[in-house]
């Protein structure tokens, strides 16, 4: 339901304007039913609203309960990430990548260092490659779980929220054991990771992979063939494949509309072509298909993780390049050259050659990429975040036209937006 923010004098003025009848000759006096032809209401949802998934403001023009037009306003979480990035060394920017799409922190960290390593011209180690795949798929799982929980709450089912957050706690334990933080992990560095996984971590992951599909089955049993769920989500917010491509949609939004574009398959990175997994593609382009696509993606992530865990090779995690990786303390305190490397890396930071690059990855929201422009110094000249949710959200006016007010919430939930990424 829409909530009108600002129940102060300003709203009263707006309400007065709305309810004014168009003409008094329409038989108001005398007890006849007045004819209001086309009297549209302007409703404001947000920026503070439980169902907008963050601080999004939607202004809807309603004809009764049908949406005629929707004008989204964003920017209520704009913090100047890209500007800050120009004043930080490459490794220092990594904590900002966590906070930007905060549901997919490890994924963002990996995306960032993939781009940075391309800019530096570094090839990472085998172990690091597989660990990063594990990190990305784990963070895909937790992002989709939040999406599942919050979408269910928006549409009315409260219990899957608790189930999904309970599973998230299990993943949090793993991430905390590895990186030290639950949510904002900062788990990667240019040339490697923050640290290798601790002992017993892989067993913990295996245990999680055994138990997690049961929760997925539970959610599946509850929702997929549920008449209420199907009735609330089928046929809503349909985007045809041509429209979806033209609007620049990506991720599950695009795949539910029938375009099988997944960056992991089409422009692979981290050896994803060597993993055996499928990409679910929908055919109806509605909210129900997006739900099915994301649910299946959770299962595919579990598949990838099982393969990654089997193939995790031994070896060093960080690349042995003194230009980017800090030397060990023993070396740094005993060898002059290492001490100089250490000093330069800490004080100035790793410096890439002049150039620019854009390496996209498949984030749970869509095609995510960081565009770096370097002028040879330790701080990027331009750090651009290509935000999938931002471009996905721009299609919302197209998707909600003609739908009911309660459908707006369902469609908004199906886009899976993260305001941190949209507003940066």
């Amino acid at each position: 339901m829409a909530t009108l923010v600002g129940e102060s004098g300003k709203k009263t003025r707006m309400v007065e304007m709305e309810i004014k009848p168009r003409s008094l000759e329409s038989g108001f006096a005398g007890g006849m039913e007045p004819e209001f032809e086309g009297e549209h209401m302007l409703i404001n949802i947000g920026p503070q609203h439980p169902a907008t998934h963050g601080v999004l403001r939607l202004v809807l023009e309603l004809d009764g309960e049908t949406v005629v037009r929707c004008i989204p306003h964003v920017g209520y979480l704009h913090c100047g990430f890209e500007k800050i990035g120009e004043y930080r060394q490459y490794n220092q920017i990594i904590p900002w990548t966590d906070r930007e799409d905060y549901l997919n922190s490890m994924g963002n960290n990996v995306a960032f260092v993939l781009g940075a390593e391309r800019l530096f011209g570094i090839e990472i180690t085998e172990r690091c490659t597989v660990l990063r795949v594990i990190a990305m798929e784990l963070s895909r799982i937790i992002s989709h779980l939040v999406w599942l929980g919050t979408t269910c709450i928006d549409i009315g089912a409260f219990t899957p929220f608790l189930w999904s957050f309970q599973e998230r706690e299990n993943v949090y334990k793993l991430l905390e054991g590895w990186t030290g933080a639950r949510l904002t992990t900062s788990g990667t560095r240019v040339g490697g990771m923050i640290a290798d996984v601790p002992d017993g971590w892989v067993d913990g992951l295996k245990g999680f992979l055994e138990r997690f599909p049961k929760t997925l089955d539970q959610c599946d049993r509850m929702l997929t063939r549920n008449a209420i769920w199907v009735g609330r989500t089928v046929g809503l917010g349909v985007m045809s494949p041509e429209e979806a491509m033209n609007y620049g949609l990506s991720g599950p939004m695009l795949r539910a509309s029938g375009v099988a574009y997944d960056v992991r398959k089409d422009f692979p990175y981290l050896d994803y072509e060597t993993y055996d997994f499928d990409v679910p593609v929908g055919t109806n382009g509605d909210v129900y298909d997006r739900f099915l696509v994301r649910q299946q993606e959770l299962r595919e992530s579990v598949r990838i993780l099982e393969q990654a865990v089997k193939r995790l090779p031994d070896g060093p995690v960080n690349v042995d390049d003194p230009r980017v990786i800090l030397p060990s303390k023993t070396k740094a305190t005993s060898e002059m050259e290492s001490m100089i490397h250490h000093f330069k890396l800490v004080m100035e930071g790793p410096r890439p050659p002049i150039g620019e690059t854009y390496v996209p990855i498949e984030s749970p929201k869509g095609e995510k990429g960081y565009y770096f422009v370097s002028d040879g110094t330790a701080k990027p000249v331009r750090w651009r975040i290509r935000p999938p949710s931002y471009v996905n959200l721009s299609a919302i006016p197209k998707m909600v036209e003609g739908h009911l007010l309660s459908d707006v919430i369902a469609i908004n939930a199906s886009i899976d937006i993260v305001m941190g990424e949209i507003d940066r």
Partner: protein
Amino acid sequence: MSSDLETQDHGAPTFAIVMPGQPGDNPTTPKNVPHKGGAVNPSVDDLRVKFGAAIGRHEVGWGETTVYVERTKVREICAWLQSDPSQSYEYLSDVTAVEYRDQVRPIEVVWHIRSLKFRRFLRLKVELPKDGKTPLDVPSVWPVWKGADWLERECYDMFGITFAEHPDLRRILLWEQYKEGFPLRKDFPLRGRFSRAEQLKNALAADPEARYSMEEISVLEAFTDLPADMRKRLGGGEKVGE
């Protein structure tokens, strides 16, 4: 996934699946990508054949091709790249701008476009010199790709680059009465031009609800009942932002 639900008639249309790439494609993770001297995107030659002088130099860095094009021809070039079956760049990934620290270098507006059919990636650039003679204005590619809508609005908001014939060029991430300037320009300090107290004052004075866009106000029948100064301000066009 239950098949009987899928065969039911939901009233939702069914689309055919579009597979990116060509049959026989086998994309792999790029390894040891060279800094310079990689393979040039074949679209560059096709562009030179079609548009001739409007296409400037091209560079290949880290496996990505960058083409510098002439400012006024951007929309035609993009429209051709999108619609021509041999190019088929149906996907716009990003529109952004870069300003270098070296003040002599021009501002570059960057388009990242992707051909899903041929699995290609191309970067188009337009240089806008900061000599005061060239306006910071480029044609909008919204008629070609609808996804450019918000991307160009953000570019305007952050850099002050206007996009000609954009349907609704307003500030998007900052509020419309934002007075400090365009944040991502290099002469804009990180913490803004005003003191913190001043910024707070401006922010609190910007009532987020009082100012609707022209589009929204046109809905209300009582536009004619608005005070004269507000009507004038809204009617005068807020496309440039204040």
